[in-house]
């Protein structure tokens, strides 16, 4: 292994890649598009803040203002106000495609002052069970607080059972490590399948074999390039997730092994798939058969924990699962022990595929 030759060859490999816009699109732009689409579609599901339309028919009373302040402090709902003049809130919610609403009746403040029972109206959409739970929990908790305060004569508004907010992981939080895993899988896999079969067909490996560059030097340069792409993609995804979706993610040193060993694993697997196929067409088919199930079943788009048990078992045999688990450990949970364990499993799988690929990948025919 001559690292000077690796350094000489690396820019040529990178140029060939960059000058084909399709490759860069799939490596860097496509994951961003996915985070924008999936983030926008699913960011309200199971997230900490459910939009709650509040119609305050008693808005002059200090009690109603205080109640809303307490409700807001739960961080479970995002309050928006609906004018009392719109009339029936239920119709308004349906027309505006909103899932939850609250009506504070007229005379709310006076009733509390007189210790007479008063009813709040809470509208939720039974089909959206998670947002329903959050709204009912938040309102119920606030109501309990008010009741306790009135019963004991002490301000207990801070004592609210559903004091959640920042500790709740949102869908986008899980999506970001998943999509970094997607990048680590897809861009080396597809382009190595393509490279190893097309370059063989076009005799480009034969051409390289006429120079002092060796197979392992070539492989090292390619690997460095996909590591570089994975790192860029990880920073882009974390950046977009943080700034556009307020995701609770941080890049820590714990992700480093996955951005190195992950590309090594999938560069090897792609090379292997391309080397065992006779034509570029059959290589592409083999590549897709490996990539697509792995992409969907390893927790890229949805957490594996939400899968039915039999699918969870399937996920446990897919190499990408350990990459994504490890990225979760590194980016979300800051869980060093978990990250090391997943890094070790990924490394073992990567070494197996790497050795196989190096053995089966040939530059010259006999």
């Amino acid at each position: 292994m001559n690292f000077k030759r690796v350094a000489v060859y690396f820019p040529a490999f990178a140029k060939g890649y960059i000058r084909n816009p399709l490759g860069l699109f799939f490596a860097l732009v496509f994951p961003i598009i996915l985070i924008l689409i999936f983030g926008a579609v699913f960011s309200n599901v199971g997230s900490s803040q459910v939009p709650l339309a509040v119609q305050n028919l008693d808005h002059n009373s200090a009690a109603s203002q205080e109640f809303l302040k307490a409700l807001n402090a739960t961080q479970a709902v995002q309050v928006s106000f609906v004018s009392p003049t719109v009339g029936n809130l239920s119709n308004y919610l349906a027309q505006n495609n909103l899932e939850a609403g609250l009506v504070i009746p007229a005379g709310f403040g006076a009733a509390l002052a007189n210790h007479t029972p008063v009813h709040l109206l809470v509208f939720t959409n039974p089909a959206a069970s998670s947002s329903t739970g959050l709204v009912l929990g938040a309102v119920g908790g606030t109501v309990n607080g008010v009741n306790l305060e009135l019963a004991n004569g002490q301000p207990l508004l801070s004592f609210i059972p559903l004091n959640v907010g920042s500790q709740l992981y949102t869908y986008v939080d899980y999506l970001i490590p998943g999509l970094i895993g997607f990048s680590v899988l897809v861009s080396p896999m597809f382009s190595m399948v393509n490279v190893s079969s097309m370059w063989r067909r076009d005799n480009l490996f034969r051409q390289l074999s006429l120079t002092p560059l060796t197979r392992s030097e070539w492989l090292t340069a390619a690997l460095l390039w996909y590591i570089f792409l994975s790192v860029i993609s990880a920073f882009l995804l974390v950046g977009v997730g943080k700034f556009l979706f307020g995701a609770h993610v941080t890049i820590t040193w714990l992700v480093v092994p996955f951005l190195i060993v992950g590309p090594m694993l999938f560069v090897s697997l792609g090379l292997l798939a391309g080397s065992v196929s006779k034509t570029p067409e059959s290589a592409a088919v083999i590549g897709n058969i490996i990539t697509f199930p792995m992409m969907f079943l390893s927790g890229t788009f949805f957490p594996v924990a939400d899968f039915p048990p039999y699918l969870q078992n399937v996920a446990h045999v897919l190499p990408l699962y350990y990459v994504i688990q490890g990225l979760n450990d590194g980016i979300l949970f800051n869980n060093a022990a978990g990250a090391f364990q997943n890094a070790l499993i990924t490394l073992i799988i990567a070494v197996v595929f790497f050795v196989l690929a190096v053995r089966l990948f040939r530059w010259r025919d006999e």
Partner: protein
Amino acid sequence: MGNAVEVTDLAKTYGELHAVDHIDFSVAAGEVFSFLGPNGAGKTTTTEILEGLRRASSGSVRVLGLDPWTDGGRLQRRIGVIPQDFHFFPRLTPREAIELYAGLFDVPARTSELLSQVGLTDKADAYYETLSGGQHRKVGLALALVNNPEVCFLDEPTTGLDPQARRQVWEVIEGLRREGRTVFLTTHYLEEAQQLSDRIAIIHHGRIIARGRPDDIIAQFGTGERLRVMSGPSMTEYLRSHIDLPVESSNGAVEVRLRSKEDALRVLQVVQSSGIAWQSFSTVQDTLEDVFIRLVGRLDEGAESDAAPRERK
């Protein structure tokens, strides 16, 4: 000077197919050697074995004293190769290609010198994929020369080139010979081989059927020199009855096969004394192409059962 290439009892089989069937030849250092043969004769297989791209089934191959298959790493620094079906990376330019090769070989990049040598200066910064087929070959030729090779293997370097570009390649080959480098050339253009080569070998059905200097091969396998007289059939009849040499007629001309220069004078005297009208005369000689077609054609007649294996591409 010693031999740059030494091939002894070389054979390459693909299952039942004998692509190369126990051949021997050598190429002297500093000569231009052409390896000729019809498609599928075993040319490229042999060439690729010499380049270290394929492994011999049996026999011995030495290039600059090294075994190309096992010692390829050391050998490739001293040889330059344009393989058949040369391809390069579509989105690199000729300039980048040469600089890449110079970097990999760890030699100074003589980029502009090589580009002008092969006539690619004006395409130096165009992507390879935008170049024509002939320009692709020129990129291959420039790359084969990056490392100042002692032996150049040029597998059909002029295929697909226009006449002007072919002459440019010929000049490069002649320049290589002047610099004392050895050139191993394969080509389908026999006039090119005749003009450029010191020696040639013709391979057919995996066996070498002729070898030597082009003139010697023409002398050995050709029909010799002929005197051609532009005249009608009565001249043919007259010459047949007055001369003891073979006489043939071909549309509007009579050809008499000569054994010596004196024969020519004798024939001309008979022509003159015949009193039959004639326009002009000339002497004609077989070209390498005539000999090649005759040799290969003769072997193919009645040789169906022993059909040559197809060359693997």
